[in-house]
């Protein structure tokens, strides 16, 4: 989702031809109800048009509530949100990520939305269940997912054609990736079979679960990085680098993996539905790229699923209205409006067809097909305390200075220390 937010900035969201709803001036109906002003903070300028449409629709249904949509750039978003909401000057409603939720729950900063969900008559079984659970705590729901992303195997058809290799199928396994990455690597032409950057959400998180390991235990107290299965999931990637089937970590830090992929240097890349719009807007990628479900690992065909939620703050002067807005922003209706813009994949079952249709050149359905097997993005109360160490501690495995096993074990002990602090 971080990547989604960042990529999103590079290209404006296409405006669909659907009629934009405008806010009618409040008339007779609202005269009884008191006028309420709510502020709503998001971090993606790119999603703003779609979100504004959702907000407009909300205001049509609730003429007495006026919503101000505020975009805070990603780099400032979390600090601004934290300081302003702790200081009592924050927005009433805001975007939230599962990885950041813990800090806000810990301080009792958020409103439970259960009553508002009941009132809106939303059947929550229409959302991916693990995403709903991501925003629940102690039996209460603090957000509903507004969208989601899964990871797929993107590939460059031109490079497959050049070597006369058949495109990936839904039945591919790790072994298929390995053999074909070797065949697709062409030192003379300067092309690589696969991109193996040091990447969590679109990379080793997926393969760790596919191998039967885990990143964090279900009770959030223990790291799974030292499990043999998890190490296998990490080694899957470091082997590609070692064999020369992928550019090195140094190369990826000079030129990001997706840029190398889009320049036609790399044949396959694991990455998310969040890059679909960028690929769609790029003439080369749009013509040559396609996507398939992730190849199966030794144990499963897991894909990491993540999604953003809308939360309402306990400090709001109008808690009832704020909760109502937060729920509406993640409602099936909101999901449908967002999907149609192509910017993000709406979270509610049955509202995603518009998104799939938007990307007619890609097998975008693959991202939906992976939902039943998806594993939710691993988080804890203070996710960044350990997630921020992953890059540094796994680096030696990518550069070959340490074995995947040693690096992963080092990370496990650092992560366990961070988790112990959370408990204390």
């Amino acid at each position: 989702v971080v990547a989604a937010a960042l990529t999103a900035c590079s290209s404006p969201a296409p405006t669909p031809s659907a009629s934009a709803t405008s806010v009618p001036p409040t008339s007779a109906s609202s005269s009884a109800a008191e006028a309420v002003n709510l502020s709503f903070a998001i971090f993606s300028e790119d999603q703003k048009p779609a979100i504004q449409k959702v907000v407009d629709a909300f205001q049509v249904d609730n003429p007495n509530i006026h919503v101000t949509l505020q975009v805070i750039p990603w780099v400032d978003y979390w600090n601004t949100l934290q300081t302003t909401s702790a200081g009592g000057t924050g927005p009433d409603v805001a975007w939230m990520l599962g990885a950041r939720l813990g800090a806000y729950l810990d301080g009792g900063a958020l409103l439970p939305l259960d009553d508002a969900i009941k009132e809106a008559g939303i059947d929550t079984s229409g959302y991916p269940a693990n995403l709903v659970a991501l925003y629940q705590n102690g039996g209460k729901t603090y957000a509903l997912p507004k969208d989601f992303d899964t990871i797929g195997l993107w590939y460059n058809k031109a490079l497959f054609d050049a070597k006369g290799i058949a495109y990936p199928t839904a039945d591919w396994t790790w072994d298929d990736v390995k053999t074909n990455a070797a065949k697709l690597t062409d030192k003379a032409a300067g092309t690589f079979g696969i991109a193996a950057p040091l990447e969590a959400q679109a990379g080793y998180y997926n393969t760790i679960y596919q191998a039967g390991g885990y990143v964090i235990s279900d009770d959030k107290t223990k790291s799974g990085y030292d499990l043999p299965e998890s190490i296998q999931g990490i080694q899957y990637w470091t082997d590609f680098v070692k064999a020369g089937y992928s550019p090195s970590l140094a190369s990826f830090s000079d030129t990001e993996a997706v840029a190398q992929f889009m320049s036609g240097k790399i044949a396959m890349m694991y990455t998310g539905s969040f890059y679909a719009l960028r690929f769609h807007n790029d003439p080369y990628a749009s013509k040559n790229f396609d996507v398939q479900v992730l190849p199966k690992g030794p144990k499963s065909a897991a894909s990491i699923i993540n999604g953003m939620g809308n939360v309402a703050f306990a400090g709001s002067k109008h808690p009832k209205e704020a909760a109502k807005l937060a729920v509406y922003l993640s409602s099936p209706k909101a999901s449908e409006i967002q999907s149609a813009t192509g910017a993000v994949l709406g979270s509610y079952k049955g509202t995603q067809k518009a998104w799939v249709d938007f990307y007619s050149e890609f097998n975008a359905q693959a991202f939906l097909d992976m939902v039943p097997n998806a594993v939710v993005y691993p988080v804890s109360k203070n996710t960044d305390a350990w997630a921020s160490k992953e890059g540094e501690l796994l680096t030696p495995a990518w550069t070959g200075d340490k074995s995947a096993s040693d690096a992963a074990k080092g990370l496990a002990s650092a992560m366990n220390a961070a988790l112990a602090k959370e408990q204390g």
Partner: protein
Amino acid sequence: LIDVRLSAHRGAAPVRRRRTDDGRWALALLALPLMGLGVFYVWPLVRTVALSFSDGTPFRGYHLSGIGHWVEALSGGELGRALLNTLMYAAIVLLGVPLAMIIAAMLHQRGLRFRSGYRVFYFLPVVTMPVAVAMVWRYIYNGDFGLLNAILQPLGLPATAWVADPKTALVAVAIVGIWMSLGTNIVILAAGMEAIPEEVTEAAMMDGAGPIRRFISVTAPLLSPSVFLVCVLSVISSLQVFDVIFVMLGRMNPALGSVKSIVYLFYEAAFVRNDRPTGAVIALITLVVTALLTFIQFRLQNRWVHYA
């Protein structure tokens, strides 16, 4: 501090006190700036010190808890390494001072044409956004298609990922630091050269000193107060290096460990891991190290700085 030492000293004639209420007037007039100083410098400093001895979360608030965060920060190897990286960076950037002296001397030559043109040229990096500078240098240093490799490879040198290789990254970043600070240094040094009396240089010429000899024996010693100022400023700003590293290296860089500065460490603790108390500890350590190094430089100046 620096200004006081360098300029305010001379020529201030003693002012006779005429009335006894002068002190009160001065205090009243100073009240506003002092309040600003108190609110924006002293109070945050006090709060930072308190925070460094505290525990808590932004929503629950912080409470004093003891020296735990200090012990943890000082006992971990991370801080020592970051401090070493930062000092190495500062040392390399200091090498830019002689370079700035030479360029300033060349710009100071009599009868130089397009002098202001050159000055603008050398000053440009200073007024350019650091992030933009870092982006351009990132491209120059790129290991796969960078400009530097394109120049070096025909000479038979192997392609290097300059900012992604732990062996070269720190030097590569420090070179950008030199390049960015060159303009300010030249301006300060050029002003210092203007202040060197013409007669001294002429006397040296009469004695048969050539341009290089004049630079070494006349200009350099008489310029030493300006050089001192430039060195002090350069070290202070080097100790705060962050933006160039942040933009040029990126998060997943294999060389990050050997370039990471103390302020980068502060950023990671306070803003990435959300550990404000540890952030406060690192910020205070940065302050102490900066004060210490500046103090040492002031103590050492007697040995080489000549105030005319």
